[in-house]
C-alpha cells in the first residue's frame, strides 16, 4: 500500500451544503402528505394546525443544518475519517483495507441538486458508513480513490474501466413486471370491481373503500419493482459486479463476487413461454438485520429479467458450472412429489452444487461448495417407504437451501459423504488466500 507523505493532518471537508435540504426533503414530503391528508379529513380548515405543521417542517430543516455544521470528513490516503454529532461526538475511522464495496446512491431530490450519497460497506462490522450528501462528481472521485487505495494503488489512480455485460431494456422490464402474479391479481380485482360497479355503484364504492389500503399496497409494490429496476445495467469491475439501476432515484452498487453464497434463477410460470429468467444472489455478512441464529444475509437482484443467453452470461461472472450433469430422482419419487417431480434435478461437481425445484415457479439454485455450512440428510415417513431421502446443502442466511430432493437412499448416503469431503477440500483450497476469505 502506498502512503501519501502528507497524511499527518487530514484535510477536513464538509458535506454538500444542500445536504440538509435533501435529507429534510424526504421528511418534509412525508409531513406535507400528512398535512394534506389531515386537512382533507377536517374540512373546517383551522389555521393553527397548518402553523404547527409548518413549524415541524422548519424544525426538521434546522436540525438538518445543525447536523451539516457538525459533520466533517477527510480521506488521507489510508483512512477515511468521519466526524459527526453535536452533543455526543462520534468519530469513525474506516481503514481502506477493510472496505468491501462503495455504492453511490442518488434519490430523486438528490438527482435534481446533483448530489449523491456514498455508502461504504466495511468488513467485519457488517455496517455501512454513509456520507450523505456529496457533490456527485466529488462522490465519484472519492469512490475511485477509496477503491484505488484499497487495491494498494495511489489514491489518485483513475477508476479502472468497467466492462459492460448486459442491460435490461425498459420495454422488457415493463412486460416482465406486467407478467407477474401480483399484476395478474390486480387485473383480476379490477375486472371484479368493474362487474360489481356495473351491478351497483354503491356496492362498488363500498368495496373500493374497504380494499383501498390493500390495493394501494399492491400498486406500490408493482411500481417499486419497476422503479427500482429501471435502466438495469450490469458491468464487470475489478472489485466485483457493478449494478446500476433506478428510475426516479439511481443506485450504483457493487456485488462482491467473493461473498456470494448462492445464485438463484427463477422462472415464473407466466414468463415460461418467453423463456425469461430472473437472477438473485445471496450475500453474507452485509445485511442490516442481525439474527440470533445464522449471520445476517442479503438478497440482491443480479438480473431482473433476461433471455437465457443473457442469464447464463451474467451467472458466469459469478460462478462457472462447466456443464455439471443434472440427474432426476428415481421415478418412484413421483409419489412423494407429484407436482414438482417434473422439474426435480440436481447434481454437483467438485466446486458447485446445482438443484432445480418447483413446479409453477421453476427455481434453479447454484451453491459453491466452498460456501457450504452444513449438509443434512432428512427422511420422512413417506420417503422411507419409497426408499428415498433428501439431502440439504445449507448456506449462510435463512433462505437458501439447495437440496437433492427425494434421491435414492444409497445415493443420498453417498452424497452426504461426498459433499462433506468436497466441502473440506474446497475450504482448504480457499484458506491460503486469506485476503478475501476472512469474514
Amino acid at each position, binding site marked *: 500500500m502506498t502512503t501519501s507523505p502528507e497524511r499527518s493532518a487530514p484535510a477536513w471537508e464538509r458535506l454538500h451544503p444542500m445536504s440538509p435540504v435533501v435529507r429534510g426533503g424526504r421528511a418534509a414530503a412525508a409531513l406535507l402528505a400528512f398535512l394534506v391528508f389531515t386537512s382533507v379529513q377536517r374540512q373546517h380548515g383551522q389555521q393553527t394546525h397548518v402553523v404547527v405543521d409548518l413549524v415541524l417542517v422548519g424544525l426538521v430543516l434546522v436540525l438538518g443544518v445543525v447536523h451539516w455544521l457538525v459533520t466533517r470528513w477527510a480521506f488521507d490516503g489510508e483512512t477515511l475519517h468521519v466526524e459527526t454529532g453535536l452533543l455526543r461526538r462520534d468519530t469513525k475511522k474506516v481503514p481502506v483495507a477493510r472496505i468491501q464495496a462503495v455504492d453511490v446512491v442518488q434519490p430523486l431530490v438528490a438527482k435534481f441538486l446533483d448530489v449523491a450519497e456514498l455508502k461504504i460497506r466495511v468488513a467485519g462490522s457488517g455496517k455501512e458508513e454513509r456520507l450523505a450528501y456529496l457533490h456527485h462528481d466529488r462522490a465519484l472521485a472519492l469512490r475511485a480513490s477509496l477503491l484505488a487505495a484499497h487495491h494498494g494503488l495511489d489514491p489518485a489512480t483513475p477508476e479502472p474501466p468497467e466492462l459492460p455485460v448486459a442491460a435490461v431494456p425498459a420495454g422488457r422490464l415493463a412486460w416482465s413486471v406486467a407478467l407477474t402474479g401480483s399484476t395478474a391479481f390486480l387485473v383480476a380485482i379490477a375486472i371484479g370491481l368493474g362487474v360489481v360497479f356495473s351491478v351497483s355503484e354503491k356496492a362498488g364504492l363500498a368495496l373500493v373503500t374497504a380494499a383501498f389500503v390493500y390495493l394501494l399496497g399492491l400498486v406500490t409494490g408493482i411500481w417499486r419493482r419497476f422503479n427500482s429496476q429501471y435502466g438495469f445495467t450490469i458491468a464487470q469491475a475489478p472489485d466485483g459486479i457493478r449494478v446500476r439501476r433506478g428510475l426516479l432515484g439511481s443506485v450504483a452498487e457493487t456485488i462482491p463476487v467473493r*461473498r456470494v*453464497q448462492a445464485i438463484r434463477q427463477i422462472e415464473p410460470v407466466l414468463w415460461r413461454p418467453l423463456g425469461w429468467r430472473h437472477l438473485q444472489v445471496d450475500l*453474507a*455478512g452485509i445485511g442490516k438485520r442481525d*439474527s440470533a*441464529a*445464522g*449471520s445476517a444475509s442479503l438478497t440482491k437482484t443480479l438480473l431482473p429479467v433476461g433471455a437465457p443467453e443473457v442469464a447464463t452470461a451474467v451467472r458466469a461472472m459469478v460462478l462457472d458450472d462447466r456443464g455439471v450433469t443434472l440427474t432426476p430422482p428415481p421415478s418412484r419419487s413421483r409419489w412423494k412429489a407429484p407436482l414438482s417431480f417434473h422439474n426435480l434435478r440436481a447434481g454437483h461437481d467438485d466446486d458447485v452444487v446445482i438443484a432445480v425445484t418447483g413446479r409453477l415457479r421453476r427455481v434453479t439454485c447454484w451453491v459453491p461448495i466452498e*460456501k457450504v*455450512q*452444513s*449438509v*443434512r*440428510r*432428512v*427422511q*420422512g*415417513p413417506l420417503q*422411507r417407504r419409497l426408499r428415498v431421502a433428501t439431502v*440439504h446443502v*445449507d*448456506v*449462510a*442466511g*435463512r433462505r437458501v*437451501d439447495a437440496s437433492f430432493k427425494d434421491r435414492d437412499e444409497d445415493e443420498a*448416503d453417498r452424497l*452426504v*459423504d461426498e*459433499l*462433506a469431503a468436497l*466441502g*473440506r477440500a474446497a*475450504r482448504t483450497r*480457499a*484458506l491460503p488466500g*486469506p485476503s*478475501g*476469505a*476472512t*469474514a
Partner: protein
Amino acid sequence: MTIGDLTTWSRPSPKLWRMRVVELAIVGSVAAVVAVIGIASGRAVALVVVMVVVVVVVVVSAVFTRRRYRAWGYLEREDDLLVRRGVLIRRLSVVPYGRMQLVEVTAGLMERLFGLSTVKLHTAAARSDARIPGLEPDEAARLRDRLAALGEARAAGL
C-alpha cells in the same frame, strides 16, 4: 458406511430417558386431573372412558419417546461432527468444525434437576440445526471445549 454403523456413535445419557419419563408423567397426571375436574358432575362411564384415553395416549407417547431417545446420536469425525435424530422424520446433520461459529451449552429447568446439559452448534446458516440434548455435564464440557478448539483450528471465512 459411516451412517449405518451405530456402534461407534456416542449417545445421550440414560438420564435423558428418565427425564423424558418424568416429563411425560407430569403432563399425563395434569391431563388426568383436568379431565376429572372437567367431568366431575358427569357419569362414571365418561370418567372411565377419559381415563382410558389418557392412559393410552401416555403409553403411546412413552413408546415414541423411547424410540426418539434411542434415535439420538453423535459422532466426532476428524473434520466434522455428525448428529442424527428423529424417528418419524430421520435427520442426519454433518457440521464441519471449520464452520462452527458458536458452541452453546444450555440447561433448562428439567435438565438442571436431572443434572444434564444440551450442546448446541451454530453455523452461519440458520438451518444447520445441530444440537445434542441430555449430556452429562462433564461430557458436555469436554465436547464444548473440543469443538471450540477444533473450530478455531479449522476456521474458514464465509
